[in-house]
């Protein structure tokens, strides 16, 4: 059975994530999972009878728990639980919210929709989400993409003060200064550039291009305005600021009352009413909307229990029992070999 799962895993790796998800949830593979579950139960029962300690049975039990939790968290599992317990929970959905607006409509992806028909259907939530603010935090430094019409390309880390030689025909680029929020002000008869602390984001980098022939040229490269050209050598430069984090400031409103207030970031989802809300997509240009992924928590804590038991079982069995006894065995075999030699 494990060999079959190995082969299916390799097959799944080649067909890609979307097709693999469909394959592993198909009817024949579901039959495989059920068979595997039965065999794991049998192995668990047998190991309890044959082996005195509980480490090996614990490993089999953990695998059973993980499979059961995974099934409960799948689309089929949700449909079954909804039918048995009269719930109305969906497995996952997306919700897009504009800044300052309330939203309680989610989009649920359909399984295998017929061609040319909508791939989503909508559902109203018993509560609403309000996006108070959405912002992107950029790293101070990003990347410069430099290329020529002859398809030469360079990717340069934007570290102020660094100079990067390109090649013999294309000169070099020096990073002079990096701005997270570029603004200009008029002072003493001059227009000056500065990095503003005001709300907003306008990433830019000031570079000096040293062409092979001709004087150096200084230019500001803005992430929001791509492809400035250095005419002397016909090279194009783009500035890609690296995103440090995404923040969606969310209020949850139920019966006209604010019941939860949270800032959702990547790796920091919001948990409410049996769902986790994850940062999924966003307005990259104006930062006026965010898209959150809603995922049901059904089966999740069962899987976590299985993970903990599997770790305990495997470390116990292999590190605490097998290694000490097997290392002792090999030491005594070696000394027996030496004595026989003498």
């Amino acid at each position, binding site marked *: 059975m494990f060999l079959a799962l190995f082969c299916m895993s*390799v097959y799944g790796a080649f067909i890609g994530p979307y097709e693999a998800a469909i394959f592993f949830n198909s009817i024949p593979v579901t039959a495989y999972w059920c068979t595997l579950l039965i065999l794991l139960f049998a192995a668990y029962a047998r190991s309890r009878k044959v082996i005195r300690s509980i480490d090996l049975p614990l490993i089999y039990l953990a695998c059973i728990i993980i499979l059961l939790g995974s099934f409960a968290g799948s689309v089929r599992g949700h449909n079954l639980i909804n039918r048995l317990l009269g719930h109305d929970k969906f497995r996952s959905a997306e919700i897009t919210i504009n800044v300052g607006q309330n939203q309680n409509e989610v989009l649920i992806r359909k399984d295998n929709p017929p061609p040319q028909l909508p791939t989503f259907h909508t559902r109203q939530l018993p509560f609403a989400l309000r996006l108070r603010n959405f912002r992107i935090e950029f790293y101070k430094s990003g*990347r410069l993409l430099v290329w020529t019409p002859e398809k030469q390309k360079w990717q340069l880390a934007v570290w102020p003060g660094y100079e990067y030689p390109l090649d013999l025909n294309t000169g070099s680029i020096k990073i002079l200064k990096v701005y997270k929020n570029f603004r200009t002000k008029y002072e003493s008869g001059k227009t000056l550039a500065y990095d503003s602390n005001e709300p907003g984001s306008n990433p830019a980098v000031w570079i000096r291009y040293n062409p092979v022939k001709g004087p150096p040229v200084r230019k500001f490269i803005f992430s929001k305005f791509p492809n400035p050209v250095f005419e002397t050598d016909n090279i194009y430069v783009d500035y890609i600021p690296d995103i*440090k984090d995404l923040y969606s400031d969310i209020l949850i409103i139920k019966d006209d009352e604010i019941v939860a207030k949270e800032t959702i970031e990547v*790796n920091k989802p919001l948990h409410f009413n049996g769902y986790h809300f994850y940062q999924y997509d966003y307005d990259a240009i104006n930062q006026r909307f965010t898209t959150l992924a809603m995922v049901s928590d059904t089966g999740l804590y069962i899987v976590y229990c299985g*993970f903990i038991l599997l770790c305990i079982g495997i470390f116990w069995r292999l590190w605490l029992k097998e290694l000490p006894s097997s290392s002792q*065995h090999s030491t005594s075999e070696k000394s027996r070999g030496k004595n026989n030699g003498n």
Partner: protein
Amino acid sequence: MEIKYTTQGLLIYIAIGIYILAFLAACLRLKKTAHALFFTAFLASAATFGYRWYYVKHLPLQNLFEVFLFTGLAIYPLSLISQKILKTADSAFDMLIAVIVLFPAGFVFDAVAKNLPPALQSPLFAPHVAAYMLAYIFMAKAAFQAVLQIFSFKNKPQPITADAEHKTYLLICAGLPLLTLGLILGSVWGKFAWGNFWNWDPKEMWSLAIWLVYVIYFHFRFMYGREKPKINSSIALAGFAVIVITLLWVNLSKIFIGLHSYA
């Protein structure tokens, strides 16, 4: 292939050079010299890794270049553990592993520093990658012992060939819990970052395949013990082949595109 004319590159080449000297000393059975050079190479690897950490301003485990630097650093402590606890003394091969992993870091992989994307800013990221790389080192050592066992000559005394099979077993016993931990940490991290603890990503599928090969190894050995040493060793070698596929082919090939593509 290109030579890195940077401080980072110089540190890597120094480490490679000392590891090569240590390996040669071990081959010439100059034990004390080999061990001293091994330790010095470890210090050089630590300097390399530390310099990278200082340069990128975050724990450097983001891409193949950084992961291979970490592996070059971890070889010496794991070699000591193998000698003292597992009683599998094969430091010459450990030195060779260090040279093999540092070579692509020094001459092949791109060393351009990149900022950590939001998904990688998780406390689970470093333990997940570290657990996997430590496991891979144990499995590489197990594969070496498996090769010794498979290609043993018929007139060699039995304890020596049985010893190689037993060492394979001990090393896989040491590595499989780390593989399991890496798989589980990756699942939990995926849940926090993307909402699912399993995304059917090619890297995840191949990682599961690695775990399954070693589970099959244990089941087979549990059933037949040492009666069929060549089959035991073949399964261990197959596991290592899948590791090489997962580590290199999946990361570098355009066939497999998924959530782990940043590596």
